[in-house]
């Protein structure tokens, strides 16, 4: 509704050695109005299901169940997934409340996540 989207989504490809990982960075607020953009990024050609996917939510200041849903869809569709967010962040709080914290492949930094994704596929 406001002129400037309160959520910015960028996609970048990073090498995992043998194959690639798409890095999706979200910055701003993920709610009903903006979650579709994040979902669209997941469905973009840059994100191949067999490759790795890194969802960086470090700069998300607000997330509600619409955002939770997108992350769950990513968990379902991308076997090699890393979700990055900070300790005590709104993202962590929501995952905790939604019983998802022990299910989400969670990392504290993109580097940590990349390292883990490479370990999974040497």
């Amino acid at each position, binding site marked *: 509704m406001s002129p400037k989207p309160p959520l910015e989504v960028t996609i970048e490809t990073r090498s995992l050695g043998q194959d690639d990982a798409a890095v999706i960075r979200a910055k701003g607020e993920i709610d009903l109005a903006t979650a579709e953009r994040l979902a669209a990024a997941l469905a973009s050609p840059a994100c191949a299901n067999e490759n790795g996917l890194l969802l960086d939510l470090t700069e998300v*200041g607000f997330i509600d169940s619409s955002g*939770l*849903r997108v992350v769950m869809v990513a968990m379902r569709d991308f076997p090699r997934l890393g979700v990055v967010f900070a300790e005590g962040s709104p993202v962590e709080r929501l995952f905790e409340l*939604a019983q998802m914290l022990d299910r989400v492949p969670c990392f504290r930094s993109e580097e940590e996540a990349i390292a883990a994704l490479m370990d999974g596929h040497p």
Partner: protein
Amino acid sequence: MITPAEQRAVSLLTLELEDSSRLASLVRDSDDAIITKDREAVVRSWNPAAERMYGWSMEEIVGRPISIIIPPHRAGEDRQILDRILAGERVHHYETDRITKDGRIIMVSLTVSPIRDELGEIVGASVIARDITARHRSEELAARLQGVTSRLAKELDPDIVLEVILDQAVAGLGADAGAVGMVEGDQVVLAGHGGYSDGGIDDWERFALDADVPMARAIVTGEPVWTTSAQELTERFPGLANARIMFTSLAVLPLAAGGSPFAAISLSFNQRREFDTEERAFLVAATQQAANALDRAQRYESQRISEQRQRVLGEVGELLSRSLDPDTILVQLAETAVHYVADWCAIDLIDDDQGLRSVAVAHVDPEAVELAKELRNRYPVDPEDPTGSPNVIRTGETELYSVITDEMLVEAAQDSEHLEIMRKLGLTSAMIVPLRARGRVMGTISLIASDPERRYDESDVEFAEDLARRAALAIDNARLFSREHEAAVMLQRSLLPQSLPEVAGVELAALYEPAAPGWEVGGDWYEVTADEGTVSVTIGDVAGRGIKAAAIMGRIRSALRAYVLDGHTPGDAIGRLDRIMRESPEMEMATIFHLDLDLAAHSARYVRAGHPPALLRLPDGEVVRLAGGGTPPLGILQGVEGVEHEVSMPPGSLLLLFTDGLIERRNEDLIIGLGRVEEALAQAPGDAKGALAELANAFRDEMPGDDVAMLAMAVVG
């Protein structure tokens, strides 16, 4: 008596003219005035050029003091010059003023030399004078023109351009008065004037472009008008024969820049006067500079206006998209309008019984807003009025009142108080524009100016109509949306239990609060199922919004209810629900809190599938979170099991289930929101209905963006 020495001096001084020598004929034929005067400043000789220049004949002036041709503001100058000559000096090309026999001031350049006798004694002075009036005049006009050019070169304020050209033209030609008229439609309107005696210009504030008067003719023909006498004026403009003419000569020049003239400047002279070539050239050139400057200023102004309009439209567009409440939209629109395009603005909408309802009134002066509202209330618009808003609504056509005079106000006033209010508010120009969307007129916007400088014209109407079109569309959309919103709310409510079952041993209350208009309806729901010694309470949230989410919610609810009535435990029922949700591709993610209470044992088992914890107030007042985990949101992930947790709920316990809308705030940790609800629950009354009512009251204002469902159950034993 004249002494012999004096006699000799006089003969020396007059020698040239009586002599037939070559020198004498040179003096006689010279174009310059050649004069001799004695030591006492008495004129002793006077050549024909001097006669032509000063108007005095030789016979008249010889023997009289030279001070006759010195104007009052140069008095004494002749003596000073003579003193220098007697001291043996010469005076070269001294520029000064002299006065002619008929009182004209002329400019002269003087060269004065001493005349000596054979012994070398100075007996007088010769003066050679050249009339430099014309030369000086053309220099002055050239300098003035240069001044006009440089002052107007970058001037963008039309008022200053008019002031400069008027001042300089009046001063340049020594006019007694001057005026500028600008074309406005088929009229000429006075835009500036100076020098007229009281009331002398009153008849000319505004006149028709086709009137037979000098200014109109100059504008229509594009040619200057020069008249040297009142008689010539009335001969050429018979229509002026009976007019009050306060002047004798007149110069009128049209102002045009490329196209046809858009203005004229008029100079009036009390004395009869000819206009020489240089003066005409000066006026033509100066007015051309002014015309160019005005043209440039107007272009700049219209560009500025068009840029401002674009800005306003952008601002309004944003404002219109910000709200979905028609009245809010219109109030903000009125405020924006008085900020940019009007001094006051009134917006009226047709209401359900076809009357006019005043929705918004705004005024640049906040104190005048009340006055404007009073005007509307005390003198309501008559729907049968042949003009104004009712007429605009009937015809769908804008009404433009470019100029509203006091007479028009008197005419329109219903009584003296009405007139007084209108005068206080100020009404000098107005336009009433229809609010029309999809072919239907729904009301009007009245834009009113109280500043005489602001006169609405066709381009303002175009802009106002553009503004009104956008506003009308936004209002229509808001109305449409509000109908859709109502439909979704209705569906949502129809899918929720119409009433809660009566169950012995517990008291139940539930509430569904839809999101405010402007936000979509969500998929929050609740359910109560009673079956042989147990009661199941459930609350859930389906991701997504609108009618689709409401429909999915309905299916989940009936599926769960069927499992419960089949006797499935909470964990089992939730596991099954997850599987059927994942089998239906159109299903969404859902969170659920589901609890079975054994009414005899006062013990409960619950599953929390990704849902916020429920809160339980124990009989001693302690509030605990039912936060047992293990089950994620349903509908997406594989291998979800409903993990059960047990809790004791002795009589006096109060259970509260809710959806995330109650605890979710931007810029705030969810846990803080949860803590707030815990505190409120600790203070709430012991019965389910009372507790729920109080919680709803406490949190209603804070939950506009999301819908909220709540279910309370008190164990009564």
